[in-house]
């Protein structure tokens, strides 16, 4: 009866089922009354007028989209550079040429650096821009809105050489933010700075404390990608723990194998 009633509400009964329902109702007065009551009640559950979100949502989305597009572009450029580097390295003539260019380059940089007044460093526009982004990021991380904090974390992608303040802020976010999405975003941002030991240490450490399976999976993936063998121990601990979800254990097992190769 339950199945038939639910299908009746969605108008999905075929002729045979309709007949079955009618027979059931015809033979049971109490059931018929209940059916009619629920049908009427369901019809009364009308959908309220839908409300429109404000322009703030549009603004937030399109800003986030632009940010992601920028990150995607950078990723593509990096991949292209990587592909070019591989083809260079394979050519013996270019290897010699590169050696000469590097020597000349070292000489030129040495001359330039000697001439440069280091006090003028804050005038370099890109550096100034990075300093501005760092300040903006640190301040946005204190915002009450989780999506604002995610955006703050995403700002860190624009900082090519993060100072300790940025990394520490990301680590603190990873370990203490109340929102799982913000913590996940912080883990991914730290993986972006995977060449920094402090970032890798934090990711390894957090594996022992994070309880959310989705975040555990993200961190395991990141650490396997970074190839840091020190991550094997905390992963083994996760494998031994009875609190760890099975699918997390499967992921940890795969990653331990990869890291042990």
């Amino acid at each position, binding site marked *: 009866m339950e199945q038939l009633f639910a299908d009746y509400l969605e108008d999905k009964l075929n002729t045979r089922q309709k007949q079955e329902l009618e027979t059931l109702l015809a033979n049971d007065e109490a059931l018929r009354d*209940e059916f009619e009551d629920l049908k009427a*009640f369901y019809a009364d559950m009308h959908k309220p007028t839908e409300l429109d979100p404000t322009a703030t*949502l549009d603004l937030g*989305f399109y800003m986030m989209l632009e940010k*992601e*597009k920028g990150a995607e572009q950078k990723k*593509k450029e990096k991949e292209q550079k990587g592909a070019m580097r591989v083809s260079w390295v394979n050519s013996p003539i270019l290897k010699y040429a590169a050696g000469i260019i590097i020597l000349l380059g070292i000489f030129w940089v040495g001359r330039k650096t000697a001439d440069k007044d280091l006090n003028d460093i804050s005038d370099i526009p890109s550096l100034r821009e990075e300093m501005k982004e760092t300040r903006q990021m640190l301040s946005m991380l204190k915002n009450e809105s989780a999506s604002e904090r995610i955006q703050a974390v995403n700002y860190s992608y624009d900082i090519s050489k993060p100072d300790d303040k940025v990394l520490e802020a990301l680590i603190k976010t990873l370990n203490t933010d109340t*929102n799982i999405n913000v913590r996940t975003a912080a883990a991914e941002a730290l993986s972006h700075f995977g060449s920094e030991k402090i970032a890798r240490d934090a990711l390894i450490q957090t594996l022992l404390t994070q309880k959310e399976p989705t975040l555990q999976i993200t961190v395991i993936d990141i650490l396997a990608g970074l190839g840091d063998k020190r991550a094997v121990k905390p992963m083994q601990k996760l494998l031994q723990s009875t609190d760890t979800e099975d699918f997390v254990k499967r992921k940890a097992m795969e990653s331990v194998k990869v890291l042990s190769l």
Partner: protein
Amino acid sequence: MTDEAAMQSVAGGDLDKAAILYERYKRPLYNFYLRFGLERDSSQDLTQQVFYRIIHYRSSFREGYEFRTWIYRIARNIYHDYLKEHTHNHKDLHENIEVAEEENYDDEQYLLIQKALKKLPQEYQEVLTMSRYDELKYEEIADILNISVSLVKVRVHRGLKQLKEEYLKLN
């Protein structure tokens, strides 16, 4: 362009197609959260998080997925994360929900049904809301909740019976 084709393009790196999906789903998702009794600001915040996730985890969208159920599954997970974060102050959360609903809707009949709905177990609330208000098919609900279609139907029937009882108590 279908939702699935747009999402496949996004997954392939054409992020501009995400705007198509955003424009189609921002209103339904915003109202999905409002109907769960969240304040307007929180509903916007969670809606934005849904789009953040679909863009950020775009590569996890596989061929053969139905986009509507995929995005609603993400929206539901985000809602559950939100509830988990606020469970330390359950009383406040429930009071906020009632206040928010009264601010968002002026339809007395709807508000009364919502009040009764909140007294049901979570699994009944979900299927009734998704089926009646979000207009999702039983198959879609089953996919979102990762349960069988038969169980969805059973929950619709039992949930509706309980809802009516709670509604009559309030009336």
